[in-house]
């Protein structure tokens, strides 16, 4: 079992990390990721703190390149026909364990979590800030329907803002549907609604059509959260809750022309692709950030892998955009 992170060790580690970051601020740029950014003539990013995860930016918001995914915290494991895994995740990831996981993520340099907004998990996020002094940033998608008038959607956006959410995006499930129905006006309204609250506002999607349509219609999004994974895993052809990016090559090709930051999600195809393979694929293919679902005991190892991958990236086809 992984060592538990108590509040004391969490605070100690956070303080030490801050001190390390302060020391590193004046140092020369380090890490291949920063060099790659230079080579691609992307907007300058602040150098990554020594010994911490490299970071990028969405607007003014600075984010670690690895973002803690929310599906394991909300127990949506997408475990194919193994329904018991949902229950097992729920019994393992109790509220207390989720709090420990958030602390472990921060202690390892992950400064952002992204998830949707079911009431109970949101209450745990709030508890983490209020009771544990947690600083992890939130990128959250409201799950309310984006309908004409946007009443319910606006309520959820307002609630998120009141809770201190740092960035908001349109849920991929909604965006896929809206774009499929040609309702780009509602996509635009959802984006503007969050933007009007002064936070970065993004669009999530599983379908590449969403990004294509948003670019075509010049939707004013600050970033995209788009699925990306290859198909080299056994259950890829199962056609049962096992594929979230149906056209990775087309996605990579199109995203080369997209100048907004791209957070890739479902990068491990919900657990079938090993972390190193997944991270190499998405960062080489152009993603600026990788959303990673992790249990507490996986975080340390995944961060070590991410640092190694980011430090050893070949020339990216797409410049860093965030």
């Amino acid at each position, binding site marked *: *079992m*992984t060592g538990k992170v108590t509040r004391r060790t969490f605070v100690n580690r956070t303080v030490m990390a801050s001190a390390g970051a302060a020391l590193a601020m004046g140092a020369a740029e380090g890490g291949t990721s920063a060099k790659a950014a230079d080579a691609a003539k992307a907007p300058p990013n602040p150098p990554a703190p020594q010994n911490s995860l490299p970071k990028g930016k969405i607007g003014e918001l600075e984010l670690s390149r690895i973002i803690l995914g929310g599906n394991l915290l909300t127990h949506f494991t997408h*475990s*194919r*026909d*193994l*329904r*018991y*895994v949902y*229950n*097992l*995740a729920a*019994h*393992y990831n*109790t509220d207390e364990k989720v709090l420990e996981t958030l602390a472990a993520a921060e202690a390892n340099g992950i400064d952002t979590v992204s998830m949707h907004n079911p009431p109970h998990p949101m209450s745990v996020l709030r508890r983490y800030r209020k009771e544990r002094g947690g600083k992890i940033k939130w990128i959250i998608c409201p799950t309310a329907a984006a309908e004409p008038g946007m009443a319910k959607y606006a309520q959820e956006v307002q609630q998120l803002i009141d809770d201190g959410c740092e960035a908001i995006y349109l849920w991929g499930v909604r965006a896929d549907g809206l774009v499929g129905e040609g309702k780009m006006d509602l996509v635009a309204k959802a984006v503007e609604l969050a933007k009007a609250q002064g936070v970065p506002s993004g669009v999530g999607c599983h379908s590449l059509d969403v990004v294509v349509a948003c670019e075509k219609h010049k939707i004013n999004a600050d970033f995209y959260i788009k699925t990306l994974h290859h198909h080299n*895993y*056994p*259950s890829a052809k*199962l*056609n*049962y809750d096992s594929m979230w990016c149906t056209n990775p090559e087309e996605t990579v090709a199109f995203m080369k022309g997209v100048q907004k930051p791209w957070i890739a999600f479902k990068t491990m195809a*919900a*657990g*079938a692709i*090993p972390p190193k393979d997944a991270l190499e694929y998405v960062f080489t293919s152009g993603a600026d950030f990788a959303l990673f679902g992790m*249990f507490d*005991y*996986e975080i340390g190892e995944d961060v070590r892998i991410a640092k190694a991958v980011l430090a050893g990236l070949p020339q990216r086809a797409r410049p860093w955009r965030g």
Partner: protein
Amino acid sequence: MSAEIDRRVFVKGSVLASAGAALAGASGGRAALGQQAASPPASGNPPGPQAALPRGKIGKLEVSRLLLGGNLLTHATHSRDLRYVSNLAAHYNTPEKILETLALAEQQGINTLVIHTAGRIVDLLKRHREKNGGKIQWIICPTAPIEDGLAQYGRQVQELVDDGVDAIYLWGVRSDVLAGRRIDLVAKAVNLAKAQGVPSGVGAHALGVIQQCEKHKINADFYIKTFHHHKYPSAPKPGQADDNYREFPAYWCGKPEETAEFMKTVEKPWIAFKVMAAGAIPPQDGFRYALENGADFILAGMFDFEIAEDVRTIRQILPSLPTRARPCRG
């Protein structure tokens, strides 16, 4: 989260169970699947819980119709290409949680578990007995190789007997390979455990193992044979189940119809395992399919939070079974 069972609750539950079973009394004759087993409790063991699960018999060993499977306790989850699930199971099923699971199984009327000799699991089982007063019976397969002379295998059998195992069987992974080539070694492995005075069985994924054992009149007391249908998304499509078992497409019983058909002719007790295809078939479906098609006992891997519901499920199924083509053999 499931309510945690401390030792006090466990002991209290056991005492209540003992009283209930004493009231239940005993009657003669071979039990039908849905009936309580006939014989009085084995000497020295407290009887089963008040509302005990129906039981059957393997030799003189009285066994609940639902047995606790060992793969979730040893974290061999067989979770297709989702390797992380094994790790998650390991982080959930800590030694302490396994002890709770064993106690909970007993409380719910499950009186037997089946497991292989992985890691230090037998030490944990002993702890359950020696420190927690647990009574759950052990049916265990040694994992030592089966070679001429059976030296390693013999040592492991002896250790298990010394540790108090209640029945032993030949691991399916071994018998699948041996049955077609060295049936003499299968016979020796069976006789070796039998000579120790415990029921001795043969495990198998391949139907050919059972067929060879029957053909050669291997002196086994029971069979532990995989059994599940192929109606789940990760199952093999027609023509794909060309091996004994595989992780993807995921199956452990390649020929369910042939298995059901052949087992009709087999007069020894049959414990069906992998009845949920390692988690893809719901218990209601998997248990019913196995019992309707001839299995005498159901081996089911369960986390602590699943046991009560699975016990309710089998309690509902057993009295509602149609007349089986295969009579109850255990």
